[in-house]
């Protein structure tokens, strides 16, 4: 450390101001889009801070943090840039309040309401608008301190923030789950109906920061990796067994809502694994996956339904093979004309097929057979049981979906290691070369497409039984998009990736149902951030991960010098 004092002129003020302005833009966005006012009624920690306030606090903290990273200064004055940037961000909010006083911002932005101004000024009106600047400066400084801490002390801080966020967000669900157990008292102590109690916040933070420091992931991993293979197996197998047991007990432990959510997740896992063959292995971008989902769902509904549209009154188990079969036949019929088409043309053609099936399902043309928008009702559950039974409601679907997902994962894994899997991968990598090596493109693609379709049909069949009905309104483009996103976010071609992707993209939004329309805002933001910071997916296959990072390194290289590639 040569010079502990920084001079005023050393600070890159341009960058600091830029970060501050971006912070201001983000903070104003959070206000105008409604997150601050709408979630002001939703406490994170009861009587301490609301979710709406938390969002602004996080934005200001982040401003400070980014500033510290951008203007990397050391010494006593090193918090200054962060504080300035934070103050600028806060000043954005002040400006918003003053602007709202002068002109009717609400004529354009609905959320620029007196409620919002009240929150921003702590109820003190325009006279209190400067408070935001002070808070911004303080939080900005705090953020820049956070950025400069050594890793060992930053990690518990990060855990601290994350614990509070998670605890506050899931408080309702955890509390509800605990209320019907002997732990009800504890539940009431730790969690308010919405958000944590002060006690809960303290307990949660101590518990989690402590636990994460004690059992830090990398430390455990290093220890396990240091063991002999036999010892490793000794650690891994019991863990896997416990994990399997946990998966089986999950719906009972967390109640029917979570069971329903994870049943839905399991269903998407299943479809994700199906598309993982088509897209992940063979590289065929299918944006019309919902078409086969629909075929499966309607097949099961028609064959098992007891309403006026039911045609056979079969049990679920007899109908499901037909659902798969019909979906595959459909896959072949739809696939044949279009699999000669390449790349993005294929994407739009499949999207078209998805739309065609969606519209036909709800059309007057087919409604005498498929019920149109009024749907097919009274689709029975696979196993008829009393409401209190072990297998009641979503539970049995959960088990069926898990079993099917395991089956599909097995099929995908076996195929991946076979001649067929290699052919798919080769097509994904370079279909021209694959063909020149003797791979029949159309037939290989058809097989991937038809198998994917079959699995989508299976998913659809189970879905009809889960919901107990099928309506044309359930056949949405969004289903196709979601499944594609699961495969990519999870990691192309990766089986555990599809599971994680479904948990992340289906499970989390379902758990956050109470945030209604904002879920999709977060969903969109999460997709973008995910792709920016983890383009290879949550759990990529080993090769793919390296490939992506390799390419981005190349990107770095040629943006700097645009070097000629062949200099020989």
């Amino acid at each position, binding site marked *: 450390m040569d010079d502990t004092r920084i001079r005023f002129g050393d600070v890159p003020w341009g960058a600091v101001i830029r970060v501050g302005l971006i912070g201001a833009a983000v903070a104003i966005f959070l206000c105008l889009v409604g997150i601050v006012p709408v979630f002001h009624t939703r406490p994170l920690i009861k009587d301490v801070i609301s979710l709406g306030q938390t969002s602004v606090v996080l934005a200001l903290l982040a401003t400070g943090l980014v500033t510290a990273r951008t203007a990397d200064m050391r010494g006593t004055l090193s918090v200054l840039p962060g504080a300035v940037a934070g103050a600028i961000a806060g000043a954005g909010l002040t400006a918003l309040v003053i602007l709202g006083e002068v002109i009717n911002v609400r004529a354009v932005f609905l959320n620029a309401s007196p409620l919002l101004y009240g929150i921003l000024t702590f109820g003190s009106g325009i006279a209190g608008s400067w408070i935001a600047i002070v808070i911004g400066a303080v939080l900005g400084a705090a953020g820049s301190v956070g950025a400069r801490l050594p890793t060992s002390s930053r990690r518990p801080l990060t855990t601290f923030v994350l614990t509070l966020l998670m605890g506050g967000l899931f408080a309702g669900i955890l509390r509800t789950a605990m209320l019907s157990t002997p732990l009800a008292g504890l539940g009431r102590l730790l969690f308010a109906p919405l958000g944590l109690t002060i006690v809960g916040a303290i307990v949660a933070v101590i518990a989690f920061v402590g636990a994460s420091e004690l059992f830090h992931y990398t430390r455990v991993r290093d220890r396990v990796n240091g063991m002999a293979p036999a010892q490793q197996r000794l650690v891994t197998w019991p863990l896997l067994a416990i994990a399997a047991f946990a998966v089986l007990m999950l719906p009972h432990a967390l109640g029917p809502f979570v069971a329903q959510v994870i049943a839905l997740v399991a269903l998407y896992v299943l479809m994700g694994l199906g598309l993982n063959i088509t897209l992940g292995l063979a590289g065929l971008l299918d944006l019309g996956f919902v078409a086969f989902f629909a075929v499966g769902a309607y097949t099961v509904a028609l064959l098992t339904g007891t309403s006026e549209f039911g045609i056979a009154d079969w049990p679920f188990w007899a109908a499901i093979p037909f659902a798969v079969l019909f979906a595959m036949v459909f896959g072949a019929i739809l696939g044949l004309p279009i699999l000669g088409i390449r790349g993005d043309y294929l994407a739009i053609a499949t999207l078209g097929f998805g739309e065609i099936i969606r519209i036909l399902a709800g059309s007057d043309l087919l409604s005498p057979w498929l019920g149109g928008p009024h749907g097919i009702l009274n689709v029975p559950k696979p196993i008829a049981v009393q409401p209190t039974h072990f297998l009641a409601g979503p539970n049995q679907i959960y088990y069926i979906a898990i079993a099917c997902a395991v089956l599909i994962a*097995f*099929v995908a894994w*076996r*195929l991946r*290691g*076979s*001649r*067929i*899997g*290699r*052919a798919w*991968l*080769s097509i*994904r*990598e*370079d279909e*021209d*070369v*694959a*063909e*020149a*090596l*003797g*791979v*029949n*493109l159309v037939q290989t693609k058809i*097989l991937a497409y038809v*198998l994917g379709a079959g699995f989508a049909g299976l998913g659809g069949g189970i879905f009809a039984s889960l919901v107990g009905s099928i309506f044309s309104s359930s056949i949405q483009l969004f289903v196709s998009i979601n499944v594609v996103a699961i495969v990519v976010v999870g990691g192309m071609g990766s089986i555990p990736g599809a599971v994680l992707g479904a948990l992340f993209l289906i499970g989390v939004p379902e758990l956050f149902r109470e945030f209604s329309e904002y879920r999709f805002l977060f969903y969109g933001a999460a997709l973008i951030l995910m792709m920016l910071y983890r383009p290879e997916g949550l759990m990529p296959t080993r*090769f*793919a991960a*390296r*490939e992506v990072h*390799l390419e981005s390194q190349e990107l770095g290289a040629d943006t700097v010098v645009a070097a000629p590639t*062949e200099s*020989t």
Partner: protein
Amino acid sequence: MPQLVAKGVTKRFGGLVAVRDLDLEIEPSSIVSVIGPNGAGKTTLFNCIAGWYKIDDGKIEFEGQAIDKLRRDQISRLGIARTYQNIRLFAGMSAIENVLVGQHHFLKTGWVGAVLRTPAVRVEEEKAHEEALRLLQFVGIRGHGRSQASELPYGDQRRLEIARALSTQPRLLLLDEPTAGMNPAETRKMTEFIRRLRDELGITILLIEHEMRVVMDISERITVLDYGEKIAEGTPREIQTNPRVIEAYLGRGAAQAGTTVSDATNEAAASEA
């Protein structure tokens, strides 16, 4: 009887004629080179033979069978394999998997068999792996089978590409600039290797090459293209002294000055670098 016969092959791109009225005959187990300046239509000719382009005129026969209407996979199965000017491996797959893809059409596993992994499938897979390892050994990169193809050193990637081509059990191998980007030592090794392919496996080699030392060293016959037309054909010695060839490479003045082709191109290469 020649193994490959091309008669009057013409390929146009819009107004541009890339290959014009070309005749070519290749005897079994020979090493033939195609040379010519950049843009002479060499790679286009390869693409026509291997089925990447549909030819506009003429016909191509391989071992007596017309192949100019076939798809690439069908041509591959008849026994023609190729490599690429810019290496085109399956970058995300391991080296051994790259080679296994080439065996695709010799294997019979259906998808049901693959899922159940029947004994027959297991035996077949084992054999395929053995064969793949043998090929990796043959090209000299055994031990790298599990590495990701894109992470192999450049020279090894070229070898892997040849191993992959060999795995389709070709009788005619089209090599598109196999020594591009190699240093003299590597080039020498590659030349040796190409000769071994022919000597040990009896494979006919059709070669595009810029490195004249290589061409003159291993070719039995050479075909020279310029602006899509064949301007000369013959043994290395005949080509080296052919005035039209020298003219094509260096212009009229050089032809009169009596330089040989290999001098000229090597000089050109030196001045480029």
